């Protein structure tokens, strides 16, 4: 159980890292979207981390200047084009009840401001911790009489992007106590468990090696305040569970399944590591 392999890689890339770090990224840059939405990209580490991180930083602070610029203006942010497509869906009646989201929730701004900041959360009426996707599907099937959306399909990710966008600036604040505690503890355990042929846990990269390079990727702290995220690599919006799955697959192990309790628990835990950072979604990342 050693981290020597990763250190070897980073020492090899040290030359490139120094060049890349100095030339391209500015960790102290400030993020203000559209000259009006102030985004907290660095904050005090939440108490529950018990000193595991000296501070918490949004993934935005690890990206090159060019990538950072794409998020500073709603027009430039390709993730927002996708979110805009969801506005029409929001206003369109669907399902046997003949209702649209707007019929119950009003405009997205009215109905959804503050929502992204507190999810995943314990939903008393359902007796479980839910992600926004689970809550959307519950509304669709039980209240609209419409069909469930595929968890990481484009309908769902466009809608979660829209819902996130109206909370931008608000600090993430997921509850980790009370009925959510059990799931949170489970998520924490998953976070620190090494998996796969490469024997890596989330912490191996995002806690022990953030700011280092793994081959040519500049490792962030793995925060989820920017999700769903427009990834330049995929040129589309990516949901949290989609990213979790990819990360696990890259350890050369068998990932957990999208939408199932392990990833829900992990999402709750990872979100809590970012409590205090602003909601940024849809963010732009590499």
């Amino acid at each position: 159980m050693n981290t020597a392999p990763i250190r070897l890689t980073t020492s090899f890339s040290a030359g490139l890292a120094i060049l890349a770090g100095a030339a391209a990224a500015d960790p102290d840059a400030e993020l203000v979207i559209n000259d009006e939405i102030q985004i907290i990209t660095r904050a005090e580490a939440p108490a529950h981390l018990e000193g595991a991180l000296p501070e918490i930083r949004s993934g935005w602070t690890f990206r090159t200047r060019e990538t950072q610029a794409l998020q500073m203006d709603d027009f430039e942010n390709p993730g927002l084009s996708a979110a805009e497509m969801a506005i029409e869906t929001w206003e369109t009646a669907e399902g046997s009840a003949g209702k649209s989201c707007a019929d119950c929730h009003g405009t997205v701004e009215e109905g959804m401001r503050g929502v992204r900041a507190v999810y995943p959360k314990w939903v008393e009426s359902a007796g479980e911790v839910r992600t926004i996707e689970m809550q959307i599907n519950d509304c669709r099937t039980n209240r609209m009489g419409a069909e469930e959306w595929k968890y990481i399909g484009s309908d769902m990710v466009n809608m979660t992007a829209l819902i996130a966008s109206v909370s931008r600036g608000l600090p993430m604040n997921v509850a980790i106590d009370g009925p959510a505690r059990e799931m949170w503890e489970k998520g924490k355990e998953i976070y620190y468990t090494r998996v796969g042929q490469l024997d890596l846990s989330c912490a191996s990269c995002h806690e022990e090696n953030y700011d280092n390079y793994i081959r040519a990727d500049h490792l962030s702290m793995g925060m989820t305040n920017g999700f769903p995220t427009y990834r330049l690599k995929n040129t589309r919006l990516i949901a949290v569970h989609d990213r979790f799955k990819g990360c696990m697959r890259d350890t050369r192990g068998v990932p957990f399944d999208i939408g199932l309790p392990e990833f829900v628990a992990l999402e709750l835990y990872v979100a809590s590591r970012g409590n205090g950072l602003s909601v940024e979604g849809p963010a732009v990342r590499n």
Partner: protein
Amino acid sequence: MEFTRRGAIAISAGFAAALMLPTRAARAAIDEQIAAFTGGAEVGSGGITLTTPEIAENGNTVPIEVDAPGAEEILVLASNNPTPEVATFRFGPLAGKQKAATRVRLAGTQDVIAIARMGDGSFVQAANEVKVTIGGCGG
């Protein structure tokens, strides 16, 4: 199977170095494109600014800008993409500046080349190397 991490790094370094050189075929394709654009005329330098990042975060979306005051047309090529053409900008009478920005795909580290045909029929060129990294852990 003996597969040390050092071995893996050495192999990937060699591979990456190899990728930096345009193939003979790519060089020929570029020369052909430039000759077609200039009609074989001499290409000077100066009077054209090509702005590109030093290192592209991801080869899928690389922001570039070309600016050549007085140009009628600017051709942009990528020296080591599967095909070199990127875009051709033609500026009309209502262009505020002979300047344009866009986002391009680069298949690997290579030169981005911009050639402008100026109002007086002359040609000028600028080229920048853009480093495009192969990600480590894309997910």
